[in-house]
């Protein structure tokens, strides 16, 4: 296996809310162009893990390195780091008072101080690729949930991040809109974007992942390639968790 560059390196990450330990010593490497899928039962700390990676939550102990540089030191400039770590959330999070294009341009022009005219072609290019070029001047309220999430993805991408974090971006979408958003993410994966994806869509996870980690109660229980993990989970906890999604599988075996 060729030695690829490490983008994120997480060492012994510990995070608690008050007395409650949420992440209990997470260590993890994410290489350039790698797609890491994080799955696990509700409340196991997946969102918390992502939020710690871009400093939205302070951590108790442990180290995080971005491109080899420590970003959990006392004098980290998170505004600087967050430009390199894009994040898309579960809830629609576009700014309602700005049009699609202004939502996208806000970060590049205000944070990175790039010229509007320089960013617009890039923004339009992304919009075209997610099929929303004609909605550039629409307001978020005029868009469907799926369209909003695609814009949110474009907004993060236009910052030209080193790595993208996706936290259950399809979880609050109507079923018929899930696909269009997952397709965008699949395309990004094939183009070599480094991504960390939290999802409950198991079919998608299997298709997009280079590596799957299964978390439970704040620790990584299993870490494996997608085929290995989904076909031969090692731990009882992973087996039980995957069983929740197994209805159709059992059916097909019985019928065929």
């Amino acid at each position: 296996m060729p030695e690829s560059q490490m983008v994120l390196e997480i060492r012994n990450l510990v995070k608690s809310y008050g007395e409650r330990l949420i992440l209990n010593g997470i260590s993890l490497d994410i290489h350039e162009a790698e797609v890491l899928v994080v799955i696990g039962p509700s409340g196991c700390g997946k969102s918390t893990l992502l939020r710690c990676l871009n400093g939205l939550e302070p951590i108790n102990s442990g180290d995080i390195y971005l491109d080899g540089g420590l970003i959990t030191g006392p004098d980290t400039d998170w505004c600087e780091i967050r430009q390199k770590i894009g994040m898309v959330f579960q809830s629609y999070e576009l700014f309602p008072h700005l049009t699609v294009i202004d939502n996208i341009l806000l970060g590049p022009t205000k944070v990175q101080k790039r010229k509007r005219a320089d960013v617009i072609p890039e923004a339009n290019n992304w919009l075209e690729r997610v099929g929303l070029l004609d909605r550039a001047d629409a307001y978020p309220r005029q868009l469907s949930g799926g369209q909003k999430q695609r814009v949110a993805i474009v907004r993060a991408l236009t910052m030209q991040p080193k790595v993208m974090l996706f936290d259950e971006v399809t979880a609050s979408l109507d079923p018929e809109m899930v696909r269009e958003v997952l397709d965008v993410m699949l395309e990004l994966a094939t183009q070599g974007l480094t991504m960390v994806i939290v999802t409950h869509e198991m079919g998608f996870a299997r298709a997009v992942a280079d590596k799957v980690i299964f978390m439970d109660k704040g620790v990584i229980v299993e870490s494996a390639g997608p085929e290995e993990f989904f076909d031969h989970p090692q731990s009882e906890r992973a087996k039980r968790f995957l069983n929740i999604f197994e209805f159709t599988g059992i059916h097909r075996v019985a019928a065929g």
Partner: protein
Amino acid sequence: MLDSVHNALFAGENFRRLMEGLGLTLWISFLSVVLSIALGIPAGLLMSSKNKFLRGFFRLYLEFIRVMPILVLLFFFYYTLSRYSAINLSPFFVSVMVFTMWGVAEMADLVRAAVTSIPAHQRESGRALGLSELQINFLIILPQAIRRLLPGVINLTTRMIKTTPFVFFINMVDLFKVGQQIVEVSGMRDRMASVWVYGFIFILFFVICYPISLFSRYLENKYQSA
């Protein structure tokens, strides 16, 4: 009848005096509204802050102002204060002060409601893009808060304008007082005078407040869907 209208509104100095009264009414309202907005915004931001003590203090102040009739406050600061202490405030000063005390409380509560109604994930999304807290406040929170604030502020403005006639009771010669003086004089000769004078005042208030209230409804519709 035209004669009677003419006498009541335009005889002698009547019209000029009515306009002067209107001017004073509007001037008191204007000063109070401007002061209320200027002081209410920082007060509202403090009210939405995390500091429990500050929040509690403003809450208490707001509740106090809300249950206290404006008239009682006017009387207290004008009559009571000068009778039982050395403090002697002019009726104009007392008027603006009391209306501002009320306006600040209401304005602060409007600001608090507007700011806290903006979902927390708006701030988070801004952070995730690398925006500084200052940029988030000015580019994301404030523009949205102002839209939600406008209808309430306009509503408060009309409420303050139409409450100003209370200054009549502390001897301010406002629109209402002028009207009453005219009625007292002309009313001897013409019993209809009071209808014309108060009718005219009614129309004046309507002409001033109704467009403001329409404007507020327009804004409400415009921003509701955002």
